[in-house]
């Protein structure tokens, strides 16, 4: 299967359902061949944005260009954009073969070519032996693959995946997302993947956009977003984050962050003085029973044994901090109520200007 790699440009896209604003000023550029994820909680507008690219739902204002051509005024059936639905949407009255052949028949291709391409597509997802089955005779994972085959067989310009893994059980989900990525790399298709699961987005996508309330919060590589969240929403949505409120103060040459409760932390990075907040990941705070220099004193409120690590909730610096400590047999769990010393790895901290 050959595919021409095309990029997608979205410019100043706005969409409202009556008085409710669903998408506000979306600007996005997806490179040819990229595996791109839209990540966000439900109601964030990620699915609406995907459906706008496919041509479903009300017409937004702005521009969506695929390979340089504005598609906003094309109906869905003229866009040649392949979409895999969350529910798979396999037609129950048609066999697997007929389902996959549907798009090719609509394009009025010669019968022999249809047969050949359907076989190729089914081979690609490894299910050519199920061609004669009806969709209700397939397992969830098989239906997922058939839905994928039905979409890629028409050689779409781009591939859109709407929460494709959400109807699968946990173990299958991990396997399917690897298969999905392998297939995407093989076909070189520009792909957009909608999900609310950060792990899914992190493990598959080249880049992703985090959405909240119809607004893109940040765009970048998964690791970039985790390490350098642009705002509190992104920090909290990607993994667990401890947020300390306070202000940056200058003392001679040295910068330090002073929390509301008066604890001071040295700042290794450049910063402007003034009110600010700081984001700390649970693994970047060390917890120990002993006091040392530059430590904050706290009290253990609660501990959870998670297997490879122990998660402590510690009251310190005016808030409840989540702290992960790797578990070793030789170290006993700190009891609830114990006084502990916290050492913060400020090199991994993220400073957000309030």
């Amino acid at each position, binding site marked *: 299967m050959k595919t021409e790699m095309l990029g997608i440009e979205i410019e100043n896209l706005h969409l409202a359902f009556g008085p409710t604003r669903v998408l506000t000023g979306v600007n996005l550029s997806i490179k040819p061949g990229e595996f791109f994820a839209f990540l966000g909680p439900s109601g964030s507008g990620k699915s609406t944005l995907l459906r706008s690219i496919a041509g479903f739902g009300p017409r937004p204002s702005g521009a969506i260009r695929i390979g340089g051509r504005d598609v906003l005024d094309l109906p*869905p059936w003229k866009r040649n954009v392949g979409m895999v*639905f969350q*529910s798979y949407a396999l037609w*129950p009255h048609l066999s697997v073969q007929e389902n996959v052949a549907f798009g090719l028949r609509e394009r009025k291709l010669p019968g022999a070519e249809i047969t050949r391409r359907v076989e190729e597509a089914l081979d690609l997802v490894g299910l050519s032996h199920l061609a004669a089955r009806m969709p*209700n005779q397939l397992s969830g994972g098989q239906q997922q693959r058939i839905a994928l085959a039905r979409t890629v067989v*028409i050689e779409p310009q781009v591939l859109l995946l709407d929460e494709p893994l959400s109807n699968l059980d946990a173990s299958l989900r991990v396997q399917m997302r690897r298969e999905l990525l392998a297939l995407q790399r093989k076909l070189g298709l520009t792909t957009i993947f909608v999900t609310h699961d950060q792990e899914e987005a992190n493990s598959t996508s080249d880049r992703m956009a985090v959405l909240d309330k119809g607004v893109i919060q940040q765009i970048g590589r998964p690791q970039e977003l985790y390490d350098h969240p642009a705002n509190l929403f992104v920090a909290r949505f990607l993994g667990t984050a401890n947020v300390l409120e306070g202000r940056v103060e200058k003392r001679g040459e040295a910068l330090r962050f002073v929390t509301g409760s008066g604890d001071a932390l040295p700042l290794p990075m450049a910063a402007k003085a003034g009110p600010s907040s700081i984001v700390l990941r649970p693994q970047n705070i060390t917890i120990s029973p002993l006091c040392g220099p530059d430590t904050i004193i706290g009290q253990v409120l609660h501990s959870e044994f998670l297997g490879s690590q122990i998660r402590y909730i510690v009251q310190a610096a005016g808030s409840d901090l989540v702290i992960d400590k790797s578990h070793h047999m030789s170290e006993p769990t700190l009891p609830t109520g114990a006084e502990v010393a916290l050492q913060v790895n400020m090199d991994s901290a993220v400073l957000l200007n309030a």
Partner: protein
Amino acid sequence: MPQDTPRPADGTGLADRLPAFLFPRLSGAALAGLLIAIFLLGFLIFPVLQVVYVAFIDPRSGGLTLQNFADFFATSLFRESFVNSFYVSAMSVVVATIIALPLAYITTRFNFGGSALIQSLGFIPLIMPPFVGAVAMSLIFGRNGTVNLMLREHLGFTIPFMEGLNGVILVQSIHYFPFILINLSASLRNIDRSMEEAAQNLGSSGLRLFRKIVFPLAMPGYIAGAVLVFIKVFDDLGTPLLLNVNNMLAPQAYLRITSVGISDPMGYVISVILVAFSILSLWASFLVMRGKDYATVQKGGGGLAKRDLSGREKVIAYGAVLFILALVLSPHLGLLLLSFSTIWSFAPLPDGYTWANYIRMWEGSQDYILNTLLYAGIAALGDVILGTAIAYIVMRTGIVGRKCLDYMATAALAVPGVVLGIGYLRSFQGIEVPFLDKPLAQWWVIIAIALMIRRLPYALRACMAALQQVSVALEEAAESLGATKSRTIRRVVVPLMTGGILAGFVTSFATAAVELSATIMLVSSEADSPLAYGIYLFMQTPSGRGAGAALGIVAVIIVGLGTFLAQIIIERDKKLKTSGTEH
């Protein structure tokens, strides 16, 4: 209703002192089940089997034979009737589809102001017994009716809407198309939006998309509706009779029994064919639809995406809808005009208007109306009592053979009114009613029982649906607090089912009030006649038409009010139940 008799203390009851084998202990529910089974066997299964049996008996020798069927197919009139019945039923399905399909498609697919109008007006045909509309339709669409008079005057040609079989097809399809509309709309609404979007995404649109994806997915609903229409039309006696079309199966059965006599085997042969065809079409539809439960709505996408109509499309849609609605409402309008007309003949509209028909109807039909209220009342009451009892026994007890009650009661669906009537005449002619000195078959009570049996399947469904909404836990809660089975049923189950039972009662009453097929076979004197038969008698003479139409209006009002009332009860019940769960 199943009820325990109060249990005697310390085993001192009569039953306890007698040997167990003499007096098998039956629970209240089992006893009720047994009585119902005996009733159904006596008034449904036995008469129908009797009809089937007679069809296979040589009237002279009394031996088993296929000769009657050979005679049937050797007679050209019967062959013609058979073909006509089949043709009329099939064509009625086609015409009903042509009416229902655009209505269902437009209302489910587009944001269309007329949707609510269609959804309510679309059901209006069902509130008029088809034979009532038949005469009015002749006046509007007949050779010298309104439409053809105007066509002849302005365009110089006429269309034989009502000639012979065409008339039956037109009347039946206008009356029964709501069955297709209701079922088809429901399955269209049940299609997951992504089913359609996936097809659009792959390049499909418009009518092609409808033909290849949407309609096939709605097929189960369509087939269910179409089969109902086919069977109803195939079995109907009233409409062809009133249109004076006698070369069809049901009228032939009626005419053979009433003119040749109760011993003539042809009426029985026709009955067997009617029943066989009803069962055959149900079975065929079952085979076609097996494994095709396409209810595809999943979380997220509820129903097809509705879209706005463009200006031109709006004109076409409103045009089509108004045309169809005018057609559908024409029998009602015709009947209303006829009921107020002095003379209406060879004219587009009546010559003059008067109240006289209503006065004449009132003077001549009080007995008809009173009889109708009595028969339909008994039938509906019996239906909900039987329905509630059967529903409870089938769904909430473990009595052996309980399913049989359900099957027997539902089997009445496949028995046309004519067949039940013939079966009663044959089976109960020889049984004398004590103190009355007349055969059971001629006693008015038998008409009420026939109506009860005919409406029972529908009432049973209503009761089962009502019982389904009463959670077993509510029953168990009452029992754990010390209520006996019978008290639980009386104090908890039945009160909670009231809405559904009441709706079942009203619907049974309204439809039984205008049933003609079985009634016409069983009416033995004019004094015992119900309203439907009265209309039939009035319509036999041109001078009686006005009063007949007035009586027809009464019938429409009874059924209309009944349907409306049932709807209100169901709605109120629903509200009550949902508000109950919110708190």
